[in-house]
């Protein structure tokens, strides 16, 4: 079974390719949007490349639980509710939600994603 470091190195290869960033710019703590400059279409490219590299399937909503954002239990007036934040924490257990929780507007949701979340997701898929 691949170690976390080995998975990170392969995830980093994907990110260097998909986002045209230098290898040394990518750390476990780098956020995809703010630190590495990813746009929404890049997330799709990254998902496809991760699936190919690791021979896994990443379903819609596994990276960001977008399908639940229509539920008023989780989102009200464009912001995640307490229940929404709890749902997000469960869906993305590796994510650092501290900053996002202070102003949890859904437009900023993709900004919580960091490299470690990709590594975590791949690790769980690989078992």
């Amino acid at each position, binding site marked *: 079974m691949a170690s976390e470091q080995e998975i990170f190195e392969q995830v980093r290869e994907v990110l260097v*390719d*998909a986002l045209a960033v230098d290898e040394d710019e990518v750390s476990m703590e780098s956020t995809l949007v703010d630190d590495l400059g990813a746009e*929404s*279409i*890049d997330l*799709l*490219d990254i998902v*496809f*490349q991760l*699936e*190919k590299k690791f021979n896994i399937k990443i379903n*819609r909503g596994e990276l960001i639980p977008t399908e639940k954002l229509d539920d008023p239990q989780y989102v009200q007036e464009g912001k995640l509710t307490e229940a929404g934040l709890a749902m997000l924490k469960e869906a993305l257990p590796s994510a650092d939600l501290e900053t996002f929780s202070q102003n949890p507007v859904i437009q900023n949701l993709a900004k919580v994603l960091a490299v470690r979340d990709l590594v975590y997701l791949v690790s769980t898929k690989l078992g």
Partner: protein
Amino acid sequence: MRWFWMDRYTAFESGKRAQAIKAITRSEEHLSDHFPGYPVMPIALVIEGMAQAAGVLIHQYYGFSKKIVLGKIPRLAFTDVDLVPGDILIYDIEVDYIRDEGSMVSVQVHRDGKQIAEGAIVFAHLGEEYADQPLYGAGDLDNLVRAFGVFDVGVSADGKPLADPSLTRE
């Protein structure tokens, strides 16, 4: 008017692969200026042709019901860019991933049996929030798809000829 940078399909397998051709002709207006005395097809238009050929392949898979837009070209390399009138470009497209939210295809371009380009294209599939923003005028898409020969050479995933939905639409 729309610019189309592929002429027609020569193979079309729903949701899987397609082959399209583009014959470069001296009468294409832009070739007078690109470049005077030395007409060369702009590579940007070759890329557009690749994207159009691939985009219709994805579009057909969803029964032309989704809005499919070019999102990203993550990989593309040309080994020859000297493409001149008389050349026939062959676009081979293979679907790598196709999901509700987006798709990715691999594309190869050949001329005279030799590969001159290889790359990948990511398409975004727009959601319901774009339902009131049609990409085509009434009937334009039907005409385009028919003119490209989708229903002349197209087959479904199980090999049956594709039916033209505009003929049975109420």
